[in-house]
């Protein structure tokens, strides 16, 4: 995830990942974060000093996009299904054909 190079993203990621496994590009909703769980995460994020509201978690539904919205910018890649796991390199496209999505991530 290269999260270590981006302390802000790492901090945001930790608030989510301690409840359910997900990587930085997985949609919270595909990773099974219910609204109740997101409300808990929200409290943690605020405790960590992030200025964030509940609706932000819906507008920016991945760790990476949320982090970017909070000013911890990084090039983003498409949301991945949760079972891909956090250990994989992000966006190693196997057979994408034309690399249309290359603007979105470090392909």
């Amino acid at each position: 995830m290269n999260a270590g190079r981006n302390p802000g993203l790492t901090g945001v990621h930790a608030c989510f990942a301690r409840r359910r496994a997900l990587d930085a590009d997985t949609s919270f909703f595909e990773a099974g974060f219910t609204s109740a769980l997101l409300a808990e995460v929200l409290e943690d994020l605020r405790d960590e000093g992030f200025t964030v509201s509940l609706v932000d978690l819906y507008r920016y539904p991945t760790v990476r996009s949320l982090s970017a919205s909070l000013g911890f910018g990084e090039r983003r890649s498409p949301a991945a299904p949760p079972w891909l796991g956090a250990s994989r390199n992000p966006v190693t496209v196997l057979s994408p054909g034309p690399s249309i999505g290359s603007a979105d991530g470090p392909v």
Partner: protein
Amino acid sequence: MSRIDGAGGPPQRLIQRALGAGSDHPSMRCPFLEHAGHRRWCQHCGGGAGRVNWGHVSVGAGTEDEQVRPTDWFIPLSDPDRAVGHVCALPQAGGGATAFAALADELGPDITVWALNLPGRQARFGEPTRTDLDPLLDDLAGAFPHPAPMLLFGYCSGALLAFLLAHRLHHHGHRAPDALMVASYPAPDRAEPARSTHRLPGEQFWSEILSYGGVPERIAAQSDFREIFEPALRADYELLSGYHHRDVAPLPLPITTIAGAADPVLRTADVDRWRAHTTGPFRSETIDGDHWLLENSPRRVADLVRASLPRTTTAPR
């Protein structure tokens, strides 16, 4: 009844691009592209037999490198390639795909839950909601996941939607599910969907919704929770507000009902009435719990799903 486990919201600055049907892969990046063997089941890529309307919604709008992200009508909550059984699950009013997260956790990895992903909430936050029943049923029938064996599961008012979808699939030549399971809802001819809740003014609307007990305190404490959830809730109430049961032939698939013993609004006779809607086997299960069985008793519900999912199917994939 309803829980706010969906999230509806105003379009905000999110950009929705309704590309309609047939966006050809790989001209758009499939979200499951990296998943080994995904072409066998992936509906984007045609492997799942049915093409779907592949809406595209941009998330994280407002930043420079705007990202185009595909959304879909059904989200598999675990790896479908590893599964030997499948559940297509329709949530309560206002609900999103995560309504089935706990159930999917109990059922995985050998059974995959394909959770309905309606617009106006969660993964499709910012997309316009849907309030017309017939066209929506057509879209859901066209996008219905094809793996087998498949159990169609409807929770609360999602049970009525599941019943109507089963009929649509059966009568329009689609591959129909192998079984139907409905939880916390009366039979279609006994259902009385709210006629005007979706038109109540804000305060009255929310006092009605909150009275159902489906809103976690932590959520209600957030200043922006109404803005997030109200559009999806109103849309789902409106969707069924005009429903009047018409006599239709019983479905040729097994039906299992689940009811909470302490459900304050569900009458046993209305649940047993589901029996009239199948020509196949009928089972009625009452379990400990109130109306919100998925949230409070997911393990028990999962056990019943396992028991009701056909072991084998003679129908071709």
